[in-house]
């Protein structure tokens, strides 16, 4: 097909295309996350657990106790004080987020909860952030509260003794001294 070849030679051969896909959805929070978010709008951090003494408390809850596969039907209020379970210092900006790097993203376990959630830490010396460190939520003004985890702007270190590693994730709602 020499005729075809000469046609192609006149133009640059296409080797790639832009093929973006945009799909619209209406996301629905699950029933359990809806209960969690409704409490958060009131400034309360809650977890959920199976209705059984000693059952692990999950924050945020997603509807099941993953360890057993059973529904988390019971609401438990947890503290807005938490312990650093792990952390990282981020040097790249989050797209669309005003927070400027370097900033600290941490796995935090609220007192009374048994599993960590991810949030930001601020008002701290990044170099001194460490596992076991005690922190507390800094909330937005009440009139800005919505069904959202960013009702809490960030967590800030507080003057309490560190939690030993083996006790992280096991504190009662009253904290280490409780």
């Amino acid at each position, binding site marked *: 097909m020499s005729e075809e070849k000469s*046609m192609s030679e006149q*133009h640059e051969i296409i080797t790639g*295309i832009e093929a973006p*896909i945009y799909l619209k959805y209406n996301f*629905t929070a699950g029933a359990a996350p809806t*209960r969690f978010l*409704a409490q958060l709008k009131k400034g309360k951090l809650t977890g959920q657990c199976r209705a059984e003494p000693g059952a692990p408390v999950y924050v945020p809850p997603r509807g099941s106790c993953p360890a057993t596969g059973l529904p988390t039907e019971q609401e438990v209020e947890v503290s807005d004080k938490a312990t650093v379970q792990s952390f990282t210092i981020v040097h790249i900006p989050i797209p669309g987020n005003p927070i400027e790097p370097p900033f600290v993203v941490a796995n935090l376990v609220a007192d009374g909860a048994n599993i960590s959630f991810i949030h930001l830490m601020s008002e701290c010396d990044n170099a001194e952030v460490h596992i076991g460190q005690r922190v507390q939520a800094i909330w937005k003004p009440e009139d800005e509260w919505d069904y959202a985890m960013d009702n809490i702007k960030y967590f800030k270190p507080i003057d309490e003794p560190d939690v030993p590693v083996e006790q992280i994730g096991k504190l009662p709602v009253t904290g280490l001294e409780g």
Partner: protein
Amino acid sequence: MSQPDILNQAFELGFTYTRSTGPVVGRFLTELKKRNIVGIKASDGRVVVPPMEYDPDTAEALSDFVAVGQEGEVVSFAWVKHPREAHPMDKPFAWALIKLDGADVPMVHCIAAKQESDVSTGARVKAVWADDTIGFITDIRCFELVKE
């Protein structure tokens, strides 16, 4: 304690992919940009438009390009009374299987027509090109009925 039954939030999910075309698809799109349509010969000699990279029966790599016509025949059509937002037209139109002149295998594309009764199986249609052709399947904006 009152709480909302359902919390929901509309969002748009974007996958901003670029795709490598390879020599066969790339050649087809390059020709589209020039407002030409090419097919490819399958192992049994059938001309496939748009060209496939491999023969579906024998898995043989295909490379024998063939120029085909810009007019063809409607093999089947579906009349879209209620176009969806993602669809290529915002008023009723037809999706169709169209066998271009010189091709043996029909291709899927759309036909602009005023009403369903204007379209029929066996009807002749011709390609309508986009104002700017860029090397994309929608360089053929649509097909329209050939007036006899």
